[in-house]
């Protein structure tokens, strides 16, 4: 029986990272829940054992129910019935299995019926689920909107809403509108305060809303009449039980068919404010998006894994010229690179999730008591690291999963172009990952400040001093030279003091940073588990170095004067 967790030992390796010790310590706070909740851990080992067991269940459900339903869901898709959404039958089965297994509200405190899991094992569940059905992954993973309600909602809202999510009700984040996609400052959905009823009312239209018929919605709306920018927007909670929001249509998409993408009409819908007015976009949506970006990075890694598995199986099986095609250098070259991108990208994903875990757990402690100066410093350090790595993890993994599904389809030859093999579905599903929750181009916008402020370079220099195995030392030295090239290109762009020139070079600089950081992370993995990662580390080093040289050449050959050649007429 397929188990999408235990079949890939790389996952368990990532779970057992030494930082987990600190994460569990912060999350469980002296294991204080152990006498109140029969499922709370007694100590660190116990907590880790529980994560492992729960991941194993998710691996099993994914390897059986979700995998078996995936093709049917892709063909059937969700149904638009009246003003509502009915999931594809396989999607409903998947959800029932995951809810029955208690996999909702995973990261929420136990007092609200959650599992109190850190973000890292939750993210790994999201990766596992997405590997077999990325569309279902969205519906299930949108539970992490509850993080935002937990962070910014009040006690009363916590006790009313969080247990419902833990019991399996679904969520959506209603942000985009026909004229507000990447540019959320232009959101126009109107929120007015109803004095008679003592509640807020929402009116307007939202478009491209994933799982738009969810039980609980977080809605970005304009509460400040007369404003036109982000400072006039607030965050609201809409409860489907109150009614007032209808699904006008379900989009017909290239991929992730299981995930209903909806156009919503708000007709005087009753809603309540989440947090403070005017902070909707500038504070809450930013938090929401950071969580969502980590989720899409996980989905991307899942799809990369799925693509690699399909490509590998086909290459072993398919005979041409009297032998399996995997024996041809042109084919195994593609597979080795796919695996290297998968391993390096996954290392980046979980490094990011661990950083997020530490600062969020400290944030949560700060709600109970004052942090010590050391804790405050730790919180700041990891928040900064997490913020710098999140756009890289999302940007790079979503691009890698597109490259990996492309190459895996290529390995299938003509069969890959037929609808008969799952690789076509993975390739279609992958295509959205580098578009939604901020395109790769917008991840560059989020990441470039960490290029210019020296944060990435500082991280590289720190990695250069880390202990690695003898086998990895040459790679570490190469990474140091790559960092020199990155530094040189960065300084060259900064010295030009031209914003447009700076913007056009940004993607190259950000990718260089990501390549070098991932090379360091995979060296760490190969030092700990050489049999699992050494090959990938060497393959990735060759790839990353070629990439860095390419980007370096591009930037160093570029001048502000050449912008005219590039500008659209």
């Amino acid at each position, binding site marked *: 029986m397929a188990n999408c967790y235990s079949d890939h030992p790389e996952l368990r390796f990532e779970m057992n990272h030494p930082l987990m010790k600190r994460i569990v310590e912060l999350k469980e706070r002296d294991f204080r829940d152990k006498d109140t909740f029969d499922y709370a851990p007694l100590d660190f080992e116990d907590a880790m054992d529980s994560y492992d067991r729960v991941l194993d*269940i998710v691996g099993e459900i994914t390897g059986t*129910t979700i995998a078996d339903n995936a093709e049917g869901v892709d063909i059937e898709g969700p149904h638009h019935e009246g003003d509502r959404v009915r999931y594809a039958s396989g999607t409903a089965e998947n959800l029932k299995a995951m809810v029955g297994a*208690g996999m909702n509200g995973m990261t929420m405190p136990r007092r609200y019926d959650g599992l109190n899991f850190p973000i890292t094992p939750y993210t790994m569940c999201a990766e596992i689920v997405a590997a077999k059905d990325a569309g279902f992954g969205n519906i299930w993973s949108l539970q992490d909107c509850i993080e935002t309600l937990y962070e910014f909602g009040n006690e009363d809202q916590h006790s009313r809403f969080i247990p419902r999510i833990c019991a399996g009700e679904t969520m959506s984040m209603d942000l985009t509108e026909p004229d507000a996609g990447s540019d959320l400052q232009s959101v126009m959905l109107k929120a007015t305060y109803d004095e008679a009823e003592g509640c807020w009312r929402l009116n307007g239209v939202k478009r491209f809303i994933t799982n738009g018929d969810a039980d609980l919605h977080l809605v970005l709306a304009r509460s400040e009449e007369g404003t036109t920018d982000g400072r006039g927007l607030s965050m609201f909670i809409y409860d489907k039980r109150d009614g007032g929001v209808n699904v006008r249509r379900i989009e017909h998409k290239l991929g992730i068919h299981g995930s209903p993408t909806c156009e919503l009409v708000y007709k005087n819908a009753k809603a309540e404010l989440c947090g403070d007015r005017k902070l909707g976009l500038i504070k809450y949506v930013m938090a929401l998006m950071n969580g969502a970006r980590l989720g899409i990075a996980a989905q991307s890694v899942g799809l990369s894994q799925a693509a690699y598995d399909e490509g590998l199986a086909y290459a072993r099986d398919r005979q041409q010229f009297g032998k399996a095609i995997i024996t041809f250098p042109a084919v195994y070259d593609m597979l080795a690179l796919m695996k290297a991108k998968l391993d390096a990208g996954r290392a980046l994903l979980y490094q990011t999730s661990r950083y997020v875990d530490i600062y969020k757990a400290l944030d949560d402690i700060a709600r109970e008591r004052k942090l010590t100066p050391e804790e405050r410093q730790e919180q700041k350090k990891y928040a900064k690291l997490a913020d710098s790595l999140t756009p890289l993890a999302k940007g790079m993994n979503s691009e890698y999963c597109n490259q990996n599904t492309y190459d895996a389809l290529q390995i299938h030859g003509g069969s890959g172009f037929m609808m008969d093999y799952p690789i076509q579905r993975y390739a279609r599903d992958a295509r959205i990952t580098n578009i939604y929750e901020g395109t790769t181009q917008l991840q560059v916008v989020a990441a470039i400040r960490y290029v210019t402020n020296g944060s990435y370079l500082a991280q590289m220099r720190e990695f250069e001093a880390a202990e690695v195995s003898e086998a990895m030392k040459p790679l570490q030295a190469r990474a140091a030279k790559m960092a020199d090239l990155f530094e040189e290109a960065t300084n060259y762009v900064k010295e030009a003091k031209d914003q447009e020139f700076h913007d056009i070079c940004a993607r190259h600089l950000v990718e260089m940073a990501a390549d070098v950081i991932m090379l360091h992370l995979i060296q760490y993995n190969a030092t700990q588990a050489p049999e699992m990662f050494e090959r990938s580390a060497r393959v990735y080093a060759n790839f990353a170095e070629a990439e860095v040289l390419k980007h370096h050449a591009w930037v160093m050959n570029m001048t502000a004067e050449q912008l005219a050649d590039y500008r659209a007429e």
Partner: protein
Amino acid sequence: MSLKIVVLAKQVPDTRNVGKDAMTAEGTVNRAALPAIFNPEDLNALEQALRLKDQHPGSTVTVLTMGLPKAADVLRESLYRGADAGILLTDRALGGADTLATSYALSQAIKKIGMPDIIVGGRQAIDGDTAQVGPQVAQKLGLDQVTYVESVESVVDGKVTLVRRIDGGVEKVEAPLPLLITVTGSAAPCRPCNAKRVMKYKRATAPIERTADMPYADEYDKKPYLTLTQWGAADIDADLQQCGMAGSPTKVKAVQNIVFKAKESKRLTAADAEVESLIKELLESHTIG
């Protein structure tokens, strides 16, 4: 009404993916080479029991298994999936039992539990494939039985409505409680393990499984639900003559290892006439049809 439900479950070697080393040279099952699993149709049975519990609040589902100490695995898994309690029947005196001796021991254990409203078992186990234990337990307890059940539709006024899977279709039957049913593999698959239940019961063990150096030993005093009930032959007042080897009239005379080998082969062309003559030949030899 709330129901007292007992599920019969067995730990079996996973014979579904048999490799080369699945049998020993002596022709017995090489248990070391095959992972021990929850008998698949017993999982279907557990699901039917749990659905009854869902429909009838206050019902209890107790899982009974006989086997080696390791068979406690199926009890833990049952707890993870929603059962209320597990009983491990383990004793050297019960070992080597055929279906007759097994059903005797199980029926004695059920008497000790106290007569349930409904006993649910899988149709058959994948190691023996006899489908005899369920019916024999019913016989020994003097209960009515319905075999090949695919779903339990309802329990109303002491009567159960069931759907049976039969050749070429299904049959709906009604039977009075108390009752024993056996469930087929075509029934609904068992619900997944539940995260909270796994974390709660992961250290549940039968006393025989425990060692002196076990971690978290003091937890067993604090949390009674972590101790699985364990019974031996004496606990169920078993007549030793009817148990284990002594109580098993089945005697294995010899085990023959069958190796499929092509004795003769024929090469055909794709011509219709040749294919037709092959089909005829296979029909005559009853290889197909």
